[in-house]
């Protein structure tokens, strides 16, 4: 075991989870301290990732655990979003009276699960990571346990997720049965496309993964769970598990099964088109902002999958690029959502935004930028994300996918415009509280500025991502 230093981040985060749990029991009066410590330990984890040269490519534990540029990048993305979730949650949790020590610990363990998922190069390791993150997420969804909706969300997520995990596990066993191994590299050597069992295995695993990123037709849980969970947990749901699941998607499809691309490409294209269209159309009628975000994230996952379906390095890079920008936009959107607070009560209906521009000009300006960016209007960051995805699609002559995708952005533009209309054109309502904590303000300013000014130097992020080469 000479390469243990490569998994220092995972070791560190596991140790800090245990430490924080114990500390939490002794420091019952002073949760704030423990809470802040959890943020610091996440920062420490990020630093530890840089402990080894970021471009090393190494595998551990009989090649079942892989550290490469892709995994490091995705881990950093995951942890950064985890940090932002923790930073903006504290006030919300206190006001909802659920400021408990379990919250940061659960988030940390879920992140640990995702890190394992991201690095996995073996079906079993992947499954362990998936279950660890899911278990933490079940509890997080029902964290506001005195509220009916929250418990309902947790239960729903648990039942459906368990079902999908079962399907996924069945797929794993099929693949093991037909290829004789669970390791991605060995599978890729043993592969023989005439074996139908393998194809079934791929399909089952894809179903399980599609459930995790809520792609149509496996999206049914998303609106209810998003609506019922506490808002900060919704934010976590909307961003973080998707990064991890996308990484597994990439590794699973492009390492063992790249040669059987003709068998899975159509499935991904279908998932992508269905998600883009359904997400856009279904969001039009929503009145609850969290449900609306759920549908909008479904359609955004469609665009991410569109990049993935191309079967090229450019496609993968465009997907990763898309999800990074998506993360940024959702960070801003949820920060805005958490600012809609009046007399210690949070508002989350679309109508509550009515006339926001009168009383809160800066907040509405940020929302304006974020929403237009989500709709993909240039010169905002969201445009570049879509641009790269469709560029990758056109390069593979997938014109149908590109045209359907861009037409669905027009449909999606309608409901984003509707929110903007409500903010800017409709009569005003009462003022909201302005005593937001500094973390919330920082994350909103940070994301808005990046979205607005992204066009000044758009190749910076692309350069970082273009080092990811899987094939």
């Amino acid at each position, binding site marked *: 075991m000479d390469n243990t230093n490569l998994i220092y981040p995972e070791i560190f985060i596991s140790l800090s989870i245990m430490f924080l749990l114990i500390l939490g029991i002794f420091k019952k009066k002073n949760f704030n301290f423990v809470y802040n410590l959890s943020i610091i330990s996440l920062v420490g984890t990020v630093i530890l990732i840089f402990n080894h040269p970021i471009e090393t490519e190494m595998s551990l534990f009989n090649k079942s655990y892989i550290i490469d540029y892709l995994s490091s990048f995705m881990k950093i993305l995951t942890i950064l979003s985890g940090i932002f979730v923790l930073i903006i949650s504290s006030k919300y949790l206190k006001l909802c009276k659920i400021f408990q020590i379990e919250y940061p610990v659960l988030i940390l363990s879920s992140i640990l699960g995702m890190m394992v998922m991201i690095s996995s190069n073996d079906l079993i390791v992947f499954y362990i990571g998936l279950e660890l993150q899911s278990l933490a997420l079940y509890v997080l969804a029902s964290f506001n346990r005195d509220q009916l909706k929250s418990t309902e969300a947790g239960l729903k997520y648990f039942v459906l997720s368990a079902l999908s995990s079962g399907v996924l596990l069945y797929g794993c066993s099929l693949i093991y049965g037909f290829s004789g191994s669970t390791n991605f590299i060995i599978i890729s050597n043993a592969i023989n496309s005439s074996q139908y069992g393998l194809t079934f295995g791929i399909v089952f695993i894809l179903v399980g993964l599609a459930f995790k990123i809520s792609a149509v037709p496996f999206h049914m849980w998303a609106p209810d769970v998003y609506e019922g969970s506490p808002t900060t947990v919704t934010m976590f749901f909307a961003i973080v598990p998707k990064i991890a699941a996308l990484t597994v998607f990439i590794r699973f499809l492009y390492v063992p099964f790249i040669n059987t691309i003709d068998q899975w490409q159509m499935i991904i294209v279908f998932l992508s088109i269905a998600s883009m269209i359904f997400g856009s159309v279904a969001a039009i009628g929503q009145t609850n902002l969290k449900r609306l975000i759920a549908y909008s994230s479904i359609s955004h996952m469609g665009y991410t999958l569109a990049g993935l379906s191309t079967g090229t390095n450019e496609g993968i890079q465009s997907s990763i690029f898309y999800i990074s920008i998506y993360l940024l936009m959702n960070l801003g959107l949820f920060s805005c959502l958490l600012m809609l607070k009046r007399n210690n009560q949070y508002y989350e209906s679309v109508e509550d935004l009515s006339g926001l521009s009168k009383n809160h000009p800066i907040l509405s300006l940020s929302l304006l930028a974020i929403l237009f960016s989500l709709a993909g209007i240039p010169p905002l960051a969201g445009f570049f994300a879509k641009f790269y995805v469709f560029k990758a699609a056109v390069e593979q002559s997938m014109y149908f996918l590109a045209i359907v995708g861009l037409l669905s952005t*027009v449909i999606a533009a309608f409901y984003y415009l509707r929110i903007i209309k409500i903010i800017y*054109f409709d009569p005003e309502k009462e003022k909201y509280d302005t005593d937001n904590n500094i973390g919330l303000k920082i994350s909103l300013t940070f994301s808005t500025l990046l979205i607005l000014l992204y066009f000044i130097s758009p190749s910076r992020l692309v350069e970082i991502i273009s080092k990811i080469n899987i094939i």
Partner: protein
Amino acid sequence: MNFPILSSLILLPIIGALFLLFSKDSILKNYQTSKYVALFTSFANFIIAIYLWFLFDSSTSDFQFIEDKEWLKGFVNYKIGIDGISILFIILTTFITPLCIISVNNTIKKKLKDFLIAILIMEGLMIGVFCSLDLVIFYLFFEGGLIPMFLIIGIWGGERRVYSAFKFFLYTLLGSVLMLIAIISIYWISGTTDVIQLYELRIDTKYQNLLWLAFFSSFAVKTPMWPFHTWLPDAHVEAPTAGSVLLAAILLKMAGYGFIRFSLGLFPIASELFTPLVYGLSLIAIIYTSLVALMQEDMKKLIAYSSVAHMGFITLGIFTVTQQGIEGSIIQMISHGLVSAALFLCVGVIYERMHSRLINTYGGLVSVMPKYSVLFMIFTLAALGLPGTSGFVGEFLILMGTFQDNFFVVTVASLGVILAAAYMLWLYRRIFFGKLINQKLLKIPDLNNSEIIILWSLSLPILFFGFYPEVLINTIEVSVKDLIEMYNYNLNMNILEIKNNG
């Protein structure tokens, strides 16, 4: 490295907008201060544009003042530059914007500062459209303009503003996304999106037709050509005066410019193939929308429909691909920019006083507002293309160019000139002559100083270019000539290519 004069033209209004955005309300307590800031920025921009015209060398068709910076690495460069065709549009943009800002007197009651910010950002983006030499940069500016215009119509518009704003936004977006796919495809086919390089490389003939249609979908909506024009009357009627002016004077010209620069320049063989389609749609636009304009009760709607008819002439002239036709189209675009801006401002003048745009509210205004009637007469005559106004020069050249190409088309198109005279003069008669029945009209004052300044400064160039169009023609002549030469050369090469491939 020379001073980046084009970038500063784009950036100056945006910097002005940022200044307004971050200035505290207390400093701008005097409502007028923010207006002066905006006016100063846009006027400075106009001066720079005029200076640019002086520096401009009209004896060559090469792109000048080129700025080329790496932007998306190895893929898209930030490349801007101008030739004889674009410089006129830049001057038009910088000329109209300060007038718009002056006209914002009492019409905008709420959030004046935000309105000015939107207008300034709009100006920057529109200048960007006219000088971008890369398809992706062009698309960026072209689409970016949707955001401020959506807000201008939606926040400061009339009763049905929400409907109109949505229609405007979604219509244009739908047209444009197809163009985006075409742009990406061009990159995939030719390996670059740099317009100058693409002119030389020529785009493979087998893709041209589809790409042309994709670009057409965007430009046809923006022009607007019949049958894609229905967003325009709605948008115009509901937009505040300044918004209508920007929309008619400059936004519509982006499509005409796009037709010349991209449709003709990049896809000669497809342009040749689709010319009958464009002719047909243009003729329908000219005749049909003129007839529709005759029946309008609402002044703004009438002028909006007349815009569609005028744009029909412009597309007709462009696709004749003759020296006169294209020159005529460009001059007609400039002239229409001035005239339609003036007419919308004129409607704004009486709307402000009477709060009605219906024609039958008025009648006999000539005795109440003599100065106003004189100016309105000039603009009416320019709109119907009377010799001595810039409208005549443009229309005449277009018809002359079309005559060389197709006799039947020119006969039908000439009918449009008569119809234009009919609806414009009838409008004038109903508003200014006849008995003064509405007693409220007696109380309204004639033009105030700022209105006089705006309207006279619009009417002078209209008359000047009507008598002496040499200034404009000199600027565009060489560029247009070389464009046509390149078009014919590329066309022949493409035809050869097809023959060789059987």
